Each structure stands twice: as structure tokens, then as C-alpha cells.
């Protein structure tokens, strides 16, 4: 059991596994995404209030969910990194940030394009939108903070601390629609009780969300491989991986 955990801490093991899972995650993500788009754009009936504008949900909600899920991954990786100093944990947090930032931007932009026809405004400083915008700033701040250090060890420690502090924003985003009087509507799916969306409209949303998550995983794997090569540049496994071991000069493990 202990051995199973230990392998996930080993950079070469993670490097190999990431490379193996990547094409599968990407391929399945594309298939599910196309299926979800077909369901959302063509099969699902128009909404009785919003007409066809509601279809924006099929990109807006997955983006929103991923923006938060990505940060959760970054936060957990930061906790593990700070507590145990695993290279892989630092690497995961590092690579998730730019990906999460783009999902956040997508969420905000699609939200604007949905809000303009429905609410008559591109933006409102309500609790949900403001806290999501804050999430974007936290991602960008995280990236800038890392870049500002010359020493990677100091960068890792500072970034991990910053990443953990930012976690507080996630429950704020989620509960904002209950705690404050907001323009943004309440939760549809992740609430206690039955989801308030019919299955006819809901199943493409589920597919799109899974597709986005698999895409996220694939992109994390891709970046992670590059990041691990960088962090472990002095190790034999990297030299081996890049085909640069000299026989007779180095003893290969």
C-alpha cells in the first residue's frame, strides 16, 4: 500500500504515466465534447424563458466549474508541497495555474455574453461575478509571484503559501449566491436536493463538464512532463529519457 503511494511521488513514474494517460484523456474529451455540443446546440429544446440563449450554459458552466476545480487542485497540491516538499506536488501547482486562469477568463467572458441579452448588462459587481474575477486575479498573482523569484526553492515556498491562502475564495464563489442578494442565479446542480434542470437539458451539460475535466487533465499532464524535466534536469532519469546517457561514463540505475 505504502509502495503504491510512493510511486506517485516519484517524478519519473509520474512523467511516464502522464504521457500514457494524456492521449486517452484528450481523445475521450473530444468525443464527449462533440456529443455534448450536439446535444446542447441541437437536441435540447429552447428554454421557455431564455429561448436559445440558455445554450451558453454548455460552455459557461463547464468553464466555471473547471476554474474552481483547477484551483482546488492547485490548493491541494500546494498543501502537500508545503507539508511534504514533494517535487511532483510543486510541479502540479505550477502547471495548473495558467490553465486555470484561462478557464476563469472563459467563464467571465461567456458569462458576460449571457448576461447582456438576459440581464441587459455585460457586468455587475455582484458577489458571484466579483469573486470569480478575484479568482482570475489570484491565478495571475500566483503566476507573477512565481516568476518574481530567482531561486526556485523560494519561489516554491512562497507560491505554495499564496496558493493555500487563495483557497478561501472557493467557498465564497460557491456560496455567494446564498450569502448575498445577487444578480447571478442560484446553484442548479451542486446543491442539496434535486437538480433544478430537466434531464433533457442536463445531460449535454454533464457531458460537456466531463469533457472539460478530461481536457484539463490532458493539458496538466502535458505541461507537467515539461515541468518535471526542468525540475529534475540533474537526474539520471531525465538524461535517460532524453537519450543522453553515455554508456561507460555514467552508471545507469
Amino acid at each position, binding site marked *: 500500500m505504502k509502495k503504491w503511494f510512493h510511486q506517485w511521488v516519484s517524478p519519473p513514474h509520474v512523467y511516464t504515466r502522464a504521457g500514457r494517460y494524456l492521449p486517452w484523456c484528450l481523445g475521450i474529451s473530444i468525443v464527449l465534447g462533440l456529443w455534448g455540443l450536439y446535444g446542447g446546440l441541437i437536441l435540447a429544446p429552447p428554454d421557455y424563458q431564455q429561448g436559445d*440563449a440558455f445554450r*451558453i450554459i454548455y460552455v459557461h458552466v463547464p468553464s466555471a466549474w473547471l476554474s474552481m476545480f483547477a484551483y482546488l487542485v492547485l490548493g491541494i497540491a500546494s498543501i502537500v508541497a508545503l507539508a511534504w516538499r514533494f517535487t511532483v506536488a510543486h510541479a502540479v501547482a505550477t502547471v495548473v495555474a495558467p490553465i486555470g486562469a484561462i478557464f476563469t477568463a*472563459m467563464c467571465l*467572458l461567456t458569462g458576460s455574453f449571457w448576461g447582456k441579452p438576459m440581464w441587459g448588462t455585460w457586468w455587475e459587481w455582484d458577489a458571484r461575478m466579483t469573486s470569480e474575477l478575484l479568482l482570475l486575479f489570484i491565478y495571475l498573482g500566483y503566476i507573477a509571484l512565481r516568476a518574481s523569484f530567482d531561486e526556485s526553492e523560494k519561489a516554491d515556498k512562497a507560491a505554495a503559501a499564496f496558493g493555500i491562502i487563495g483557497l478561501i475564495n472557493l467557498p465564497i464563489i460557491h456560496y455567494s449566491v446564498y450569502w448575498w442578494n445577487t444578480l447571478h442565479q442560484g446553484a442548479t446542480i451542486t446543491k442539496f436536493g434535486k437538480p433544478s434542470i430537466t434531464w433533457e437539458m442536463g445531460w449535454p451539460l454533464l457531458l460537456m463538464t466531463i469533457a472539460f475535466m478530461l481536457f484539463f487533465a490532458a493539458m496538466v499532464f502535458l505541461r507537467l512532463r515539461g515541468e518535471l524535466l526542468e525540475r529534475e534536469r540533474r537526474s539520471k532519469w531525465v538524461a535517460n529519457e*532524453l537519450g543522453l546517457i553515455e554508456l561507460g561514463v555514467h552508471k545507469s540505475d
Partner: protein
Amino acid sequence: MINEFFAMGGYGFYVWSSFGLSLLGLMFIYFSAKRFEKRKRTEIAHWIKSNK
């Protein structure tokens, strides 16, 4: 019928802008990740060679 599809009940501009921007976002994530990984591979290979 295809016209109805693009019109999206009058909301076409908003719906297709949203999907278009989302696609751009996903493509950006993809190509920047690819660029990053490739750059690291060549960078580290070069570093290893010059530090033998």
C-alpha cells in the same frame, strides 16, 4: 433550418460569440501547453549536453 441554427432565436451573436471564445480559450490552452513542453525538452537536452 440551418438559418434557425445560426440565428439561435435572435440570440445568435451572443451564443456564437460564447462558443467561439470558448473554443479559442481551449485552443490557447492546448497550443501553449504543447509549446511549453516542447521548449522544455529542447532546453533541458541542451543544458544536459553542455553540462557533461
